[in-house]
């Protein structure tokens, strides 16, 4: 009887110990999971994640479009094809500051060390090359959306992933996307993300969007499927900050001492030799 009781007690104790160990293990697992989810400051609150690829994409696009201010670092690489047929990859880094509706600043450093600064303050857009101390400037009222489109479409300048900066980005990406698929759930630097793949008429794209309440893109890859060799452009985003401290002076341009104003290349044809000298003729200011 005693033996039986002792045996029963022993069993109960063993079970209790096992249960405690299991509980510890479970607690440890939860803690580890929390740790995995936390590096990108993704909030810990439970959210209802969309399950459809289109919903995930548009949630990201709407979240970005509605962000009134943000800063982000973007590192990108892209393929180029040389006359010899050789494929060469270049890279660059950008620090982007957005303050809707009128403030946009992009500090660019190319892989060869060359730097450029793009500024827009709601009235003028300026591109400045510090190493040559030259800048081009054009007037454009209306806000970031108008300025970005004007910069690319009319001035033929370059601003990769410019669509992400627009307040109408959701409409842009939706209208261009012909097909969209959910590839997989994966992790980037420990952050659980949704990997989506979309196709437009001319570009195939992939985007990685983190789980959680801040669905800001972590990585985007574009494939130019109609171009020779199907070159790719890939960008990695880091240091998203949706509540940065920015001042108006960050977006306005004050020509440094000794700097020289030049025209945008797309405007040179429009400028008669006698008119090119007038800064106002190309919408700028001295």
């Amino acid at each position: 009887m005693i033996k039986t009781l002792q045996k029963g007690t022993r069993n109960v104790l063993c079970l209790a110990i096992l249960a405690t160990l299991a509980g510890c293990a479970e607690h440890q697992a939860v803690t580890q999971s929390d740790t995995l989810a936390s590096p990108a400051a993704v909030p810990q609150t439970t959210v209802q994640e969309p399950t459809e690829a289109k919903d995930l994409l548009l949630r990201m696009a709407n979240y970005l479009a509605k962000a009134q201010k943000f800063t982000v670092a973007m590192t990108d690489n892209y393929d180029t094809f040389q006359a010899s047929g050789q494929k060469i990859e270049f890279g660059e880094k950008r620090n982007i500051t957005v303050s809707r509706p009128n403030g946009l600043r992009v500090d660019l450093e190319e892989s060869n060390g060359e730097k450029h600064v793009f500024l827009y303050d709601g009235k003028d857009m300026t591109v400045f090359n510090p190493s040559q101390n030259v800048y081009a400037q054009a007037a454009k009222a209306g806000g970031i959306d108008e300025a970005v489109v004007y910069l690319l479409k009319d001035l033929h300048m370059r601003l990769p992933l410019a669509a992400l900066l627009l307040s109408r980005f959701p409409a842009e990406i939706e209208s261009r996307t012909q097909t969209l698929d959910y590839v997989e759930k994966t992790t980037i630097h420990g952050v659980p993300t949704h990997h989506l793949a979309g196709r437009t008429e001319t570009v195939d794209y992939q985007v990685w969007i983190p789980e959680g309440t801040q669905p800001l893109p972590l990585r985007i890859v574009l494939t130019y499927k109609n171009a020779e060799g199907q070159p790719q452009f890939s960008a990695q985003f880091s240091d998203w900050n949706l509540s940065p401290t920015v001042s108006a002076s960050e977006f306005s341009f004050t020509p440094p001492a000794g700097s020289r104003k030049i025209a945008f290349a797309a405007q040179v044809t429009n400028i008669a030799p006698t008119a090119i000298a007038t800064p106002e003729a190309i919408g700028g200011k001295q």
Partner: protein
Amino acid sequence: MNIKLNSIVTAMAASFVILAISADDATARGFGGGGGGGGGYSRGGAAASGSFSSGVGRTAPSASTASSRSQAAQTASTNRSATAQTASTNRAATQQGMQSTSTANQAQRQDSSAENQQQRQATSSQNQGQRQNYSNQNVQTRQQTAQQYHGSYPPPAGYYPPPPAGYYNNNSWDDGEVAAVAVGSAAIGAVAGYAAGQSNTSQSQSTAPATTVVYTAPPPASGGLPCNPNTSVVKGVTYYQCGTNWYTQAYGNGGVVYMPVPAPY
């Protein structure tokens, strides 16, 4: 003993490092390098734009495309016509010759006929070759122009609903290909005709955008220009003169470039 062994190992490792560096240098310097044929590597191309759309592969013709095609077609047509006339003349001449030598024997006639046939075949082959060349040139011209096409294009039909009405209801505002500007050398821009429209917003202040075709400069003699230029400043704008050509600096999508301009005075 150990110290000696360590010294030997260290020396061998250092030798390997030096050899590896030398090999890298040899690779970099000894095999020609320079993808751009002496002008450095180009940073341009479709992927450099980083855009969600691309003008590459679009088929909508621009006025300049049509003009180019028309000119090329006219040239091809003219050449084909001229060649055909030559062939006809040759045949007529041969026929006259045959008539004037009516006393010649059949063998001679057969030889002559065979020669004529060979000539006609040769001329025909030449014509075909020329037509093929011109056809290839036309295709190349069309492809090149299509790659430079920056204009608007109807949005793709997809299962997504059309975008909300906005003043920018097109998907090609960011599809410009980045011009090929060689790394390590400045570029000289040439300006070509541009048929694609500017942004279709009433708020746009732009007047007449132009396609900028930037090509790799000849080996730079002075800061990317093809000579050591005379520099003039006219009304605040710096001009660079190389012979009868004038250039000014401008900001393009590949950076600061030199572009040809009319003489400022």
